[in-house]
């Protein structure tokens, strides 16, 4: 009876109720993100007007006054915050104090660039990291296992900026195997904007050479970013797989005489996927918000570089916009990971 009381009201499917609750929580979290970002940026002991105006303009009271009025900086902080929220509810993320361009427009350029980079990196990481983790687990306590563990540790401990320059130096400068900086060759023209992902947009436009060029430019920075997550995933996959290797259902499968391939793919990997997917979600989030150094070296003008540039120039609307996007990404990823559990693990689905 008690269990029946906890059920959703008649007419509202459990999944819809779950989604509604998650969306409500997400909205509250977003509100929190805007508040914290606003407070933090205003705690910085500096004046955004000084950062935006040149030497002579900053010394002209009339220009300074006009700038403050245009940017809404002449109003008390609570008024500034609620004005921002009011605009936000109408889909307006404000205007950059540096470029006087809509923050939404600027994020619309920077975010897809980083998404493309992070997706490339996570794909490389997932294929190699889980593969190496599986190999190491199946060869536990052998020489191969030791080598993989050491190599994965290197991936985790090498600074990204140094590795980015080293990889650029070797594969672009010395070996000339891959192209240099940017997302496309300087002679190429970007494909018509649909998603902002050059790989996708070039395919949609049927520009195969541009697609190849975009992939070609993606390989090095995505690989550098992937090195860290490969290390993480290798170590995590290895331990997750080791845990299920001795599970009763795996031993049962072997006892039934199933082939090694079937046991590994249908029992071992599937059993270990839940924790691995959790790590993949976290790794993808960190990739999206942690690409700044690699973006700088490869002139990949994405979200990381936009965030860095906005922070150093005290571009408050841009900083707020980045905070919101990163917050939404993390919450969205957690949500996707939660849903993915249901597909992988029947016990989660039943619950």
């Amino acid at each position, binding site marked *: 009876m008690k269990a029946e009381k906890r059920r959703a009201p008649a007419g509202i499917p459990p999944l819809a109720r779950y989604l509604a609750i998650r969306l409500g929580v997400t909205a509250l979290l977003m509100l929190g993100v805007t508040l914290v970002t606003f407070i933090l940026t205003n705690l*910085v*002991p*500096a*004046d955004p007007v*000084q*950062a935006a105006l*040149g*030497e002579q*303009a*900053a*010394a*002209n009271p*009339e*220009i300074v006054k*006009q700038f403050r009025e245009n940017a809404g900086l002449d109003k008390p902080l609570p008024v500034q915050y609620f004005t921002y929220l009011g605009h936000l509810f109408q889909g307006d993320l404000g205007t950059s104090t*540096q*470029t*006087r361009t809509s923050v939404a427009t600027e994020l619309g*350029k*920077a975010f897809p660039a980083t998404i493309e980079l992070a997706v490339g990196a996570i794909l490389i990481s997932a*294929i*190699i990291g889980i*593969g190496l983790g*599986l*190999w190491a687990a*199946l060869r536990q306590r052998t020489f191969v296992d030791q080598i993989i563990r050491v190599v994965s540790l290197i991936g985790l401990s090498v600074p990204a900026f140094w590795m980015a320059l080293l990889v*650029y*130096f070797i594969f*672009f*400068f010395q070996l*000339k195997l891959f*192209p*240099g*900086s*940017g997302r496309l*060759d*300087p*002679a*190429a*023209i970007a494909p018509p904007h649909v998603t902002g992902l050059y790989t996708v947009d*070039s395919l949609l436009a049927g*520009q*195969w*050479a*541009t*697609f*190849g*060029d975009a*992939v*070609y430019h993606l*390989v090095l920075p995505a690989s550098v970013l992937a090195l860290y997550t490969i290390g993480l995933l290798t170590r995590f996959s290895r331990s997750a797989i080791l845990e299920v290797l001795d599970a009763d259902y795996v031993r049962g499968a072997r006892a039934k005489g199933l082939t*090694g*391939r079937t046991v*590994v*793919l249908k029992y071992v990997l599937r059993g270990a996927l839940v924790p691995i997917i959790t790590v993949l979600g976290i790794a993808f989030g960190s990739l999206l918000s942690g690409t700044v150094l690699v973006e700088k*070296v490869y*002139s990949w*003008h994405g979200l990381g570089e936009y965030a860095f*540039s906005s922070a*150093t120039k005290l571009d408050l609307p841009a900083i707020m916009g980045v905070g919101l996007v990163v917050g939404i990404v993390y919450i969205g990823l957690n949500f996707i990971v939660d849903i993915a559990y249901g597909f992988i693990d029947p016990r989660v689905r039943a619950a």
Partner: protein
Amino acid sequence: MLSPLRRIVGIVGIAVVATLGITACSAGSSDSSSSGGKSVVVDSSFDLKTADPNREYETTGSIVAKALYETLLTFKGDDVTKPIDGLASYEMNADNTVMTLTMADGHVFSDGSPVTVDDAVFSLQRVQGIKGNPSFLLEGITVAKTSDTTLTLTSATPNPALPYILPNPALGVVNKKVVEENGGTATDADGAEAYLNGASAGSGPYMLESFDVASQVVFTKNPKYTGDAPAYDRVVLRNVQGPTQKLNIQAGESQVALDLNPDQVAEVGSSDVTVLSSPSRYMIFLLLNQDPSVSAITSNPDFLKAVKAGIDYNKIVDLAGDGSVQPGGFIPSLFVGAIDASDGNQHDAAAAKAALASSGYKGEDVTLNFPNDITVQGLSLQSVAESVQAQLKEVGINIVLAPAPVATELDAYRGGKETVGLWYWGPDFPDPSNYLAFTPGELVGLRAGWAAGADSTVTDLANAAKAAVSTDERQSAYAALQKAQNASGPFVPLLQPAQNVVTSKSITAVSLNPVWTIDLAGIK
């Protein structure tokens, strides 16, 4: 049957081979998405904000505006001592208060319409009305059309610097009709910036193909340009950081690199590239606050003398690499009024120790503030600050370094709150009058606590320099002003860092200039 592991390895292998196959096919290909014509790639570290010429006032913005727009007057090559005709010729009246500009025949915008006096008047009034970063260039000036071919710029007080101000790319002439059709006005209600970030409306050697404030600006040749046609049909100006610029230029990925620091320039020296090093327009200086309420130590004249004599200027120049020089005063060596380094402050450890003893200084810590997240021509101010600290330690002065991000340090600097500051000055226009800001009661003077009337000798010399008319008179007046400042003023000019431009061997000429850094149309 393959084992699971071999199968996975096989799939990965096929994916890698397929990817490399596609990318190899695409490498160097020129399908419909690639543009034709002769093109050049220029790598630069951007500080770009806009492609609207009348709003830009940044280094990259000037490069962009110079390529897209023409100005009423201009400079030839890197000679900024003599303004020459651009879209107009000029005459100044005897007391330098009225400049009459006569429009030249034959100039046309990229849409084919002629450049008229109305376009010129609108553009200059737009700079004033927008109230943006470059508005101060025309502060106190009345712009008026006086005939179908002439306009006048009238100043309330003599303004001999005006011919040196007009070549600034921020004063580029825009197509009035096109800009007005797209929301442009000569007031702060102007709304044409978004349009001008997508298309140019000028008469310069290039037109805007694409503009991305963060990544790159692409230019295509303007077929209607009436000057010498540029050598390249297409220019790609890319935002690339210094270390990557170095590898790109060495590998032939780019043909011009603008922001290599002294160490990087030294490293590429033996490569198959050409290095052009010359003193830049920037002047790096120390300021010692003269306001006793900020610091009783730095406002002591003997302490000031000790600092000036305690610094080994040659060591700082060595630190900054080839092409760097010590300016004799606060005016860089490129401009009228500059004095030789031999007339500047000199290192004399014994004199520094004697002055320090007279000052009553007892070894207290003295804070040196500076921004540590910016570089000047690739030179880190942190390295200059450390060098100053080490040198002053040798004569007995204890400097404590206080680095901070520029955004947070600017308030203290501009508010005159720093005890000792390490900063740089980039000229707003190549005329010595711009450096009157370093005199008592003026913009930078106040930042050093040097109030109006604090030094009547320097103020009198500044007034004399302001009143001087001929080039010779101005040269000697500004020289006398700087020598007086070196003797008693709170500023210690340290260094003019080098402007390093590295080009591939395929480039036979580049046209550099202290106002717009590089003329993209001058790359050959």
